[in-house]
C-alpha cells in the first residue's frame, strides 16, 4: 500500500492522531518511534517543548525559537535540561513494546555504496566519502557484533556501473580491509541504482529465501543513470518485492521519490540524513535485526543454511515457520601442543574441536569440514538472547510511593545513597516525563529500587536485573 | 647546514629533574649503608612506604615472594617474568636493582648451584606485620585519647593551616629584596628570587616537600644516629589519616623536637605549643602518595593563568604575589589590574634572568605548565615556536665564547708533528690540531709528558740523521 506522503514535514497522515504539534521532532524519515506497523501505542500526549537535540543547526528548527528548548532552572544549572534529555531516552524505551518481538537472526545484507561524483561534496567535513567510509567501518564491526551469524557483501555504484567489491561473507576483517584501501574506492561518474539492485538480487539468488535478505543503499547523488531497455527500475522493484528482499535507503542529498517507493514497498526504511549525527543515527538504526510481527506484510523467512540440516522447504503457512538446526558447541583447545587443523591442513596452536567428529577447526563459526555440522561457540548465540528476555522497564516512584512503603535508602544495583525524600520540595515533586523526583526506579518483579544511572545501564548494556537474577 | 629548530631540543638537552617526586629521598637513601636500613625497617610504616615507592614490577616480585619461605631464586624470577632460562643474569638483576638499592634483598649469593637473593629478614618481618597488623612498634601513630567534647579542627581547617604556613615558608625563605634586607616591606617590583629558588618553585608540590624534609634531615641530624629515627617519623606521618589526632609522646618518643620543627613548616598542627596532641595536615598524609594532586591545595586550573601571544605579550590572570614575583623575573610587567598582570617578554629582562642562572628550559617549562586552558584550544605545540626559539637564542647569545686553558706546540717538521699528534691523541691530551700550520694544542696538565716525548723524538730523529 504505497503511501503518498507529501514532503511537508509533519504532514504525513500516519501521525494524525497526535495533537497537531509543529514542534514534533519531525525529521523526514522514520519517526523515532519505531518502524512501520511498529510497536508501541500511539504517541502519548506529547508535552510540547520536547527537548530537541542541541546539536541541530538553528535554521533546522521550525519557527519556534530554540533558546527556550534548553532552559536553566532557578538554580541556574542545566541539570534539568540534561535530565529531560535522559528522560526522553527513557520514555522512548518505555514506548518500545515489552513483548519479545520475534526478530530473525540469520541475516544477509548487501551494502550498496554510491561512489558517484557527488561523494566528493564538502558539506560533511572533510568530504562525504571520508565520513561515510569511517562510519561504515564502525558499522560493519557493530553489525557483526549484534548479528554474529549474519553475512555482509559490498557493491559499489560508479561510472553508471555496479561492481561487487566484496562477495557475501561472514568475516568482518576481510570487509574492513577492503573498506580501508581508498585507492580502489575513488568516487567518479554517476550511480546506477537499477544495476546495483539487480546485482544485489543476483548476489542473493543462491540463498534460499528462508533467511532475512536485506539491502542497505547509501545514496548521495540526486539522479540515477539506469540502462534503457525492457527492464525498468519498476520491474526490478517488483522482483525485489517477490523475493522478499528488504531495502533500507539512506540518502545524503535529498528525498527521491523512487527511493522512498523502493524502501516502503519492500518493507524497509527510507531516511535523508540532515547532519552527521543524524546520518549516524539512521545507520545505527538498521543494525538491530528488523522487527517482524507475526502478521507483518513481509513475512520473515527461515533459513536452513547447512545442507545437512535442510528440513522441508519453508511451507507458506500463516505462522512463519522457523527451523530447528543442529549446532555443535566446540571445545577450545589449550595453547599447549600444536596439531593439524582440518580446515587448512596446517600445524596450529589452539583451535576448536568439533563436538561430533573431534576434528580441529581454526575459527568459529564455520561448518565442520569433516562432518558438516554447523559449529558455533555458545557466546555467539548468547549475544542475541538479551531481546528474548528483555528486562521490564522500571516503574517511577513518586514522593508519596516512597513515603508509603518502606523502601531501602541505597540503590540495589550500585549501592549509592538515594536523596533523602523529605528534602525534595513539593514544586518538583510531580512525576513528569518519566523522571522520578526521588531518583528511585522500582522493578516490578523483584520490587528492588534502582537509581537513574543503574536503570539506564541495566536497560542499555546489562539486560539483566540484579534483583530478579539470583 | 640546517639550523636545528630549538623547539625540540637535541638529545643532550639537560633532562629536567627526574620525574619521580621523591628524587631527593632516593638520592639520600641510595648512599646509606646496610645498618641504616636495619634501623629503618624496624618500623612497619617505613616498610609499607618503601614498598610503595618501588617501581611496579619490582614491587610485585617482592610481594610475590613475601610469604614464600625459600629465598628468591633467579630461575624463579625469570620464569615469573616469562624470560627464557638462558637470559643473561644482568637483565634479571636490573629488574630487581631498586630492591637491592634499598637493601630489601641481600646481594646475589651462590648456593646449591642456584643463584639467589635472600630476602632481608627485618624488612620481611616488618612488611608481614604491616599487612597483618601484628607489629609492636606503634609506627602508625598512637591515637590521642581526648575527651570527646573537645572541638576538633575539621579537615578543611587543617588543609588551610598547612597551606598558609607552607606559603609563608615560600615567601620568606626563598625570596630576598636586595633593598630591604629586613624583609619587612618587600617592594614588589624589586622582589627577586634566587636562582636556586626559581628552580625549586618550578617543581611540583611533592618534590618540594621532600626536598625540604631531606634538607632538614641532612642539616639537623647529619651526624647523630637519630636521623634514622626522624626519617621513619616522616614515613609514619605519611601513613597517618587526615583529621585524626595522635599523641606525640607515644607515637614518636625519640623525635620530639623534630616533630615541633615540622609544626612550623605546616606538616602538623598542634593546638598549643607544648600539648601532646597533634594533627597531621594534608601535606604530611600525602607524602608518599606518589600523585602530586593530593598535596596540591590549589586546584589544577588555579595554577593555569598564563596566556602567551606570538607578539611576546603575556597576560597573567592572577593576583598571587608569589606568581607575580616569579613573572617579574623575566617579564617586563607593564600594567597591573586587580586580577590581571600584562607584560612583555623582552630581551633585557630575559637576559637579566639568565644572568641569575635561570635557563631557557626552565622558563619554557614554567610558561607551559602554567598555560591557560585557552592556549590548549590552538593546535599544538602549546607555546608558539618563534617564542621558544627566541628564548633559546637569547640563552645561546650569552655564551658565544668557550674558553679553555691550553699550551700551543708549533712544529716545523711534518714527521715530528705527526708522531706527537698521534701520541697526544693516544692519551687524550689533544685539544685541537691544525695540520696546515703544524700546530698542536695540548691540555696544560699533560704538558710535561708531551714535552718529554717531543724531546726524546727529537734526539732520535737528530741522531738518526
Amino acid at each position, binding site marked *: 500500500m504505497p503511501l503518498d506522503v507529501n514532503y511537508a514535514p509533519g504532514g504525513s497522515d500516519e501521525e494524525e492522531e497526535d495533537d497537531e504539534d509543529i514542534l514534533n521532532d519531525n525529521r523526514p524519515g522514520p519517526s523515532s518511534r519505531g518502524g512501520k506497523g511498529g510497536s508501541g501505542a500511539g504517541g502519548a500526549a506529547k508535552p510540547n517543548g520536547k527537548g530537541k537535540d542541541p546539536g541541530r543547526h538553528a535554521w533546522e528548527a521550525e519557527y519556534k525559537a530554540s533558546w527556550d528548548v534548553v532552559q536553566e532552572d532557578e538554580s541556574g544549572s542545566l541539570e534539568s535540561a540534561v535530565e529531560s534529555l535522559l528522560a526522553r531516552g527513557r520514555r522512548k524505551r518505555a514506548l518500545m513494546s515489552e513483548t519479545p518481538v520475534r526478530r530473525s537472526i540469520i541475516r544477509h545484507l548487501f551494502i550498496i555504496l554510491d561512489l558517484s561524483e557527488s561523494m566528493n561534496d564538502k558539506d560533511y567535513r572533510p568530504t562525504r566519502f571520508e565520513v561515510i567510509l569511517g562510519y561504515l567501518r564502525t558499522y560493519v564491526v557493530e553489525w557483526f557484533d549484534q548479528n554474529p551469524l549474519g553475512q555482509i557483501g559490498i557493491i559499489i555504484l560508479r561510472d553508471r556501473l555496479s561492481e561487487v567489491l566484496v562477495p557475501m561473507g561472514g568475516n568482518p576483517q576481510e570487509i574492513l580491509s577492503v573498506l580501508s584501501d581508498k585507492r580502489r574506492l575513488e568516487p567518479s561518474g554517476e550511480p546506477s541504482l537499477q544495476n546495483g539492485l539487480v546485482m544485489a538480487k543476483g548476489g542473493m539468488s543462491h540463498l534460499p529465501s528462508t533467511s532475512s535478505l536485506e539491502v542497505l543503499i547509501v545514496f548521495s547523488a540526486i539522479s540515477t543513470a539506469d540502462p534503457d531497455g525492457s527492464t525498468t527500475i519498476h520491474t526490478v522493484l517488483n522482483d525485489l518485492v517477490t523475493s522478499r528482499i528488504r531495502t533500507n535507503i539512506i540518502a545524503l542529498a535529498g528525498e527521491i521519490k523512487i527511493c522512498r517507493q523502493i524502501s516502503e514497498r519492500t518493507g524497509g526504511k527510507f531516511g535523508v540524513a540532515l547532519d552527521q549525527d543524524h546520518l549516524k543515527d539512521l545507520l545505527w538504526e538498521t543494525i538491530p535485526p528488523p522487527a517482524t510481527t507475526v502478521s507483518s506484510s513481509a513475512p520473515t523467512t527461515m533459513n536452513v543454511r547447512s545442507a545437512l540440516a535442510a528440513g522441508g522447504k519453508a511451507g507458506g503457512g500463516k505462522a512463519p515457520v522457523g527451523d*530447528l538446526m543442529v549446532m555443535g558447541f566446540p571445545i*577450545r583447545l589449550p595453547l599447549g601442543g600444536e596439531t593439524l587443523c582440518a580446515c587448512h591442513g596446517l600445524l596450529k596452536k589452539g583451535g576448536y574441536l568439533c563436538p561430533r567428529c573431534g576434528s580441529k577447526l581454526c575459527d568459529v563459526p564455520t561448518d565442520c569440514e569433516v562432518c558438516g555440522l554447523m559449529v558455533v561457540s555458545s557466546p555467539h548465540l548468547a549475544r542475541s538472547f538479551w531481546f528474548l528476555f528483555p528486562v521490564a522497564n522500571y516503574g517511577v516512584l513518586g514522593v508519596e510511593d516512597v513515603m508509603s512503603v518502606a523502601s531501602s535508602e*541505597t540503590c540495589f544495583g550500585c549501592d549509592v545513597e538515594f536523596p533523602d525524600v523529605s528534602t525534595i520540595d513539593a514544586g518538583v515533586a510531580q512525576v513528569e516525563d518519566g523522571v522520578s523526583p526521588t531518583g528511585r526506579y522500582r522493578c516490578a518483579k523483584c520490587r528492588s529500587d534502582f537509581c537513574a544511572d543503574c536503570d539506564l545501564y541495566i536497560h542499555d548494556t546489562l539486560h539483566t536485573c*540484579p534483583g530478579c537474577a539470583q | 647546514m640546517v639550523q636545528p629548530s630549538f623547539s625540540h631540543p637535541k638529545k643532550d638537552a639537560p633532562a629536567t629533574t627526574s620525574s619521580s617526586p621523591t628524587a631527593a629521598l632516593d638520592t639520600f637513601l641510595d648512599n646509606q649503608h646496610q645498618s641504616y636500613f636495619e634501623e629503618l625497617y624496624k618500623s612497619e610504616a617505613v616498610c609499607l612506604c618503601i614498598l610503595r615507592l618501588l617501581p611496579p614490577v619490582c614491587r610485585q616480585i617482592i610481594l610475590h615472594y613475601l610469604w614464600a619461605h625459600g629465598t628468591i631464586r633467579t630461575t624463579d624470577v625469570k620464569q615469573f617474568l616469562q624470560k627464557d632460562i638462558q637470559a643473561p643474569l644482568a637483565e634479571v638483576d636490573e629488574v630487581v636493582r631498586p630492591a637491592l638499592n634499598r637493601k630489601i634483598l641481600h646481594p646475589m649469593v651462590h648456593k646449591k648451584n642456584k643463584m639467589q637473593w635472600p630476602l632481608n629478614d627485618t624488612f620481611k618481618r616488618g612488611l608481614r606485620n604491616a599487612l597483618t597488623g601484628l607489629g609492636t612498634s606503634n609506627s602508625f601513630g598512637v591515637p590521642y585519647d581526648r575527651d570527646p567534647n573537645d572541638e576538633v579542627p575539621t579537615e578543611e581547617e587543617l588543609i588551610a593551616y598547612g597551606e598558609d604556613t607552607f606559603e609563608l615558608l615560600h615567601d620568606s625563605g626563598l625570596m630576598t629584596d636586595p633593598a630591604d634586607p629586613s624583609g619587612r616591606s618587600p617592594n614588589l617590583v624589586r622582589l627577586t628570587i634566587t636562582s636556586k629558588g626559581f628552580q625549586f618553585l618550578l617543581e611540583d608540590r611533592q618534590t618540594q616537600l621532600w626536598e625540604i624534609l631531606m634538607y632538614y634531615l641532612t642539616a639537623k641530624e647529619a651526624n647523630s644516629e637519630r636521623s634514622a629515627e626522624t626519617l621513619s617519623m616522616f614515613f609514619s606521618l605519611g601513613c597517618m589519616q587526615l583529621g585524626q589526632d595522635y599523641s606525640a609522646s607515644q607515637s614518636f618518643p625519640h623525635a620530639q623536637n623534630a616533630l615541633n620543627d615540622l609544626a612550623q613548616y605546616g606538616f602538623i598542627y598542634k593546638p598549643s605549643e607544648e600539648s601532646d596532641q597533634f594533627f597531621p595536615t594534608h601535606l604530611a598524609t600525602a607524602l608518599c602518595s606518589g600523585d602530586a594532586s593530593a598535596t596540591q591545595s590549589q586546584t589544577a586550573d588555579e595554577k593555569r593563568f598564563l596566556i602567551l601571544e606570538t607578539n611576546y605579550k603575556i597576560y597573567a590572570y592572577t593576583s598571587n604575589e608569589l606568581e607575580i614575583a616569579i613573572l617579574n623575573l623575566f617579564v617586563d610587567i607593564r600594567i597591573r589590574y586587580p586580577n590581571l598582570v600584562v607584560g612583555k617578554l623582552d630581551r633585557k629582562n630575559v637576559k637579566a634572568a639568565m644572568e641569575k642562572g635561570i635557563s631557557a628550559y626552565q622558563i619554557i617549562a614554567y610558561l607551559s605548565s602554567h598555560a591557560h586552558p585557552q592556549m590548549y584550544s590552538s593546535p599544538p605545540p602549546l607555546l608558539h615556536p618563534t617564542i621558544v626559539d627566541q628564548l633559546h637564542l637569547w640563552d645561546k647569545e650569552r655564551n658565544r665564547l668557550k674558553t679553555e686553558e691550553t699550551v700551543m706546540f708549533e712544529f716545523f717538521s711534518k714527521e715530528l708533528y705527526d708522531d706527537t699528534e698521534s701520541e697526544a691523541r693516544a692519551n687524550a691530551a689533544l685539544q685541537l690540531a691544525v695540520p696546515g700550520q703544524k700546530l698542536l694544542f695540548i691540555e696544560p696538565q699533560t704538558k710535561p709528558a708531551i714535552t718529554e716525548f717531543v724531546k726524546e723524538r727529537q734526539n732520535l730523529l737528530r741522531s738518526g740523521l
Partner: protein
Amino acid sequence: MTTAQPTAAEAVYPTTTPPSVLLVIVDIHPLSWSLLASPPPAPPFPVNHAIDLAGASPMTLPDFVTILMVFLNAHLASRWGNEVVVYGATAGRAKLLYPPPPSAVAGPSKPRPNSYRPFQLLDSRIEEGLREMISEEEDRLQSGDTAKLNEPSAMVSALTKALCFINRIVPPSNNTSDITNPNEPLAPGGSGPDRPETRILVINATPGAHVSASSDGQTNGDADGNASAQPTQGNQQRGGYVGLMNCVFAAQKAKVPIDVLSLPPPTIDASPPIFLQQAAHLTEGVYWQWNGRGGLLQYLHAVYLPPASLRHRPFAVPPQDAVGFRAACFCHHKTLDIGFVCSVCLSIFCEPRPVCLMCKTRFPIKSLPTLKTLAANIQSIPIPDTVPPPIIPKGVTPNGPNSVDGTRKGRGAGKTGGGGGGGRGEPIEID
C-alpha cells in the same frame, strides 16, 4: 598467544600503573564450605615430590577469610589509589559488604597504633558484614523459608551489582566518540593516565554445578500464549546461563577482566564450573582451580595480585585451560555439546521439539524424524587435557596414562547424562 620476549636488554617495563579497583565476590554458600572443610584425601602425585608431600588441607570459611584479608591488604598496600570492593554471595542472595552502607550499625572503631588505618577499616568491616550475612542465613533457616536455600549462590546477581558499581565509579569513556573529528584537543588535566582500571575476582566454592544454571530447573513446557507472561523458567534462565552471558558481554564492553578462583579441588569437583571458565576466557581474566593442597595465600599473590596492566607483559599468567564452549539448553538447563537451535530466536534445546519454546515458531514436521535419528547417535567427545603431561623423570612409574596434576576421572557424560554435565574423559591419544 606467544609469550612476548622483551628483546632489549632493559626491557621497557611500565614505570607507573594506574590506580586499580579490585572487586571481590566471595561465595559463602554454607553447603559448599561444609564440603571444603572436609576434603577427601589427595591422590598421590609422584611427579613432583614437594606437591605430593602436601596432603589435602581442609579449608574452612574463617581461615579462608583471614587469608583473603591479607591478600586484600597486599592489594591496598601496593599503590596509593588502589581500592577494594567486596560482595558476599550466598544461596539466592548477594550483598555488598565493603565499603559499608552509610547506615552501617557499628561506626569505624578507634584506630589501632599497629595497623594501617585503611587495612583496619577493610578487615573489620568484612568480618562484620560476613557475620551479618551468616546470621541472616541462620534465621532464614529457623523461619523455615528454605525455598531458596538449595539454590546455587547468587553469582549472577553479585556480578550485575559489581558491574553497576563499576559503571558508577568509572563512567564509560564514550568510546563511540565521533570518529570524524578524532583530533579534538585533549582537555588539560584530562585524567587519561590515572583513570582507574578495574577487575573482578570471583571466588567460587560451589563444586560441580555449572554455576547457577543447573538448579532444579523445573521444566514447564507450557507454550502458553503469546509470551506476555514471562515463562517462569525465564527468570530462572535470566539468572542462570543467559544472565551470566549478559554480564560477560557487559564486562567485555567495559574492558573489565573477570578472574575466577575455583576453590573445590579436583577431588571434590571433577568438572570445573564451565560458565565461569567461559566468563574468564571471554573477558581475558584468569581461571584457576586450586589443587586443594594448601598454599592458598601464595597462590593468590602469585596469580591474582598483578593488575591487568602487568599481566602477560611482563608477568606470567597460568596457562589457558581447554575451555568447553558449551551451552545450557533452555528446557532442562543441561550443558550440552550438540544442541538444536531454533533459527528464529537461537534458543537452544537438547532434543528436537515440534514448537520453539521461546518464539512459538512451528518447525517443519518432516524434519523431525531425521533430526531425532541424528540426535540418537551423538557421542560427546571428552575434553583433552590442558597442558601436555610433564616429562616424567626416569625411575618414577606413572600410574596410568592420565596421571597429571590431580587425576581427571569420570567418563564423558553421554548425551543422556543427567545433571552435572559432561565430565572430563581420557585425553585424546594423539600419537
